[in-house]
């Protein structure tokens, strides 16, 4: 397996608070990599720093060998790294199809003047993106809701649409920030199946959540964080039996019980 994303000793301090302390990990191509941890563990900070929303205080992020540390989000998209957000994941007032067309910006943008004058290059890019949007809807089973306005969709569908917008940018790696937060069990399964479909399209996924079952169902490998640091890493079932992990989640008492 070739390594796609390399995170090396990534740190982020907010004043005196160390939100992220020398976090290192690697994600292989088409791997689903989970990051879990209790609230305040630094998961979202990790996503924000990797996706360029905030700048790191130290460390390095490499994508397919290229140093992309601290690049702006839209530049990272050009390099094939896309993320989703916990909230505001869709254009609420637009149809599903229009949402996805907006997601294809990276492919269709031929420049201001070609776009303005409708040159043949711009038109070709446009029809290519329209076809790709139909493909994305087909892959993620969104075709039947193509003309529905996003805000009228059930919440679980909106989350799936958020991932579809990410897929529309045709990334190599997608970062999902708590895609299953606030979802019912059935909706969580829908999101889980969608993540698997992303991987089936050759995309590596880094997914963040604190729902243990969702993560252990889905991920090839899991990294557990607490207080900005790595606590454990490995296969899901191994990690979840780790004493330090149980302690971080449930307290010392349960960790002792697990030992006996």
């Amino acid at each position, binding site marked *: 397996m070739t390594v796609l994303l390399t995170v090396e000793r990534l740190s982020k301090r907010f004043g005196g608070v160390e939100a992220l302390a020398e976090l290192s990990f690697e994600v292989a191509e088409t791997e689903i990599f989970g990051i879990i941890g209790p609230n305040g563990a630094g998961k979202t900070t990790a996503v924000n720093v990797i*996706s360029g*929303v905030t700048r790191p205080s130290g460390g390095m992020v490499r994508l397919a060998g290229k140093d992309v540390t601290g690049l*702006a*989000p*839209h530049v990272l*998209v*050009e390099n094939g790294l*896309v*993320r*989703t*957000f916990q909230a*505001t*994941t*869709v*254009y*609420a*007032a*637009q149809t599903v199809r229009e949402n996805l*067309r*907006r*997601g*294809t*910006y*990276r492919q*269709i*943008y*031929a420049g*201001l003047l070609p*776009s*303005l004058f*409708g040159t043949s290059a*711009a038109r070709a*890019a*446009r029809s290519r993106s329209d076809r790709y949007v139909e493909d994305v809807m087909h892959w993620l089973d969104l075709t039947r809701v193509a003309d529905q306005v996003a805000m009228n969709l059930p919440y679980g569908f909106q989350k799936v649409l958020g991932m579809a*917008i*990410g897929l*529309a*940018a045709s990334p190599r790696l997608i970062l999902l920030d708590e895609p299953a937060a606030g979802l019912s069990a059935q909706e969580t399964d829908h999101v889980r199946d969608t993540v698997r479909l992303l991987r089936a399209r050759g995309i590596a996924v880094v997914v963040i959540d604190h729902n243990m079952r969702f993560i252990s169902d889905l991920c090839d490998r899991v990294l557990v964080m607490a207080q900005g640091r790595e606590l454990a890493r490995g296969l899901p079932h191994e990690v979840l039996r780790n004493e330090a992990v149980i302690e971080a989640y449930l307290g010392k008492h349960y960790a002792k019980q697990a030992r006996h």
Partner: protein
Amino acid sequence: MTRARIIAPLCAAALLGWPWLTDDKFLHHVGVLICITAIAAASLHLIIRTGHVSLGHAAFMALGAYGSVLTVMGLGLPWPAGFVVGTAAAAALAAIAGPILLRLTGKYFVLVTFLFGEVVRMAIVENAWLTGGSNGIFDVPPLNPALLSNRAYYYFALLFAVFGVGLCARLLGCEYGRAIDSIREGERLAECSGVPVIRVKVTVFIIACALAGVAGALQAHYIRYVGPESYSIVQSLNLVVMNVIGGMASLPGALLGTVFMVTLPELLRGYVNLQQVIFGAILFATMAFNPGGLIEVFHRLRAWLRAAKPNAIGGVSSTVRGS
């Protein structure tokens, strides 16, 4: 498509033909003002579509106006050079100020653009050696003796309005417009689809302010006077109100608002005091009952007509198609 083919020539005929239906110079004058203001309002609409309400748009009209007048009168160059200099001055200031201003959001952008507009106005007042100070510059020569009549200037301004508004419409209608709307509706999301948010905003801001400069130059050479009071907060605010009354999210709305806001005060000239009251009432009513603006009323009316008499409408359109 067929309907657009019918409506577009009709609109063109109406815009070109109406000045010959009347010899009233005052009506021609209102026509000129609408054309000039339409460019300014449509260009402000571009900025509003990126999610920023600018209260300093008149400052860029001022730059276009002074830039053009000073080039023509001070340097003795022909008017096309004046228009180019005025437009370039407005665009240049936008290129300098834009990257700073556009990092502000919401009410902070509104407040700072208001201050920015006032700073520009004060700079004009204070540099009397160049700008004539608060007296302004009188006796601006006409562009051409042939353009001295209101009717002739109407066609001249109409040409610029068609070009300016057309540019705005095209910009919003092409893929670039999709990026603009994405930014307004979800800036972070747009950025994570690869839209270079600040670059798009600054580009749109420069284009919009250059168009405001064109409007300013057109206006100065029409009324043949430039003064700082024409470009105060009142004018900036009027441009915003045109967009609000017409409908913030659509370009035709901005044009509708322009026609409304230019025509009404000209018609109510006898009742200057009452004017402000009527404007206030209309603004209140718009914001309280019809936030979609005038264009929304139009859409609702059309939907209602269709629902009420589907056969009658169908009959009319088929007759038109047949003829």
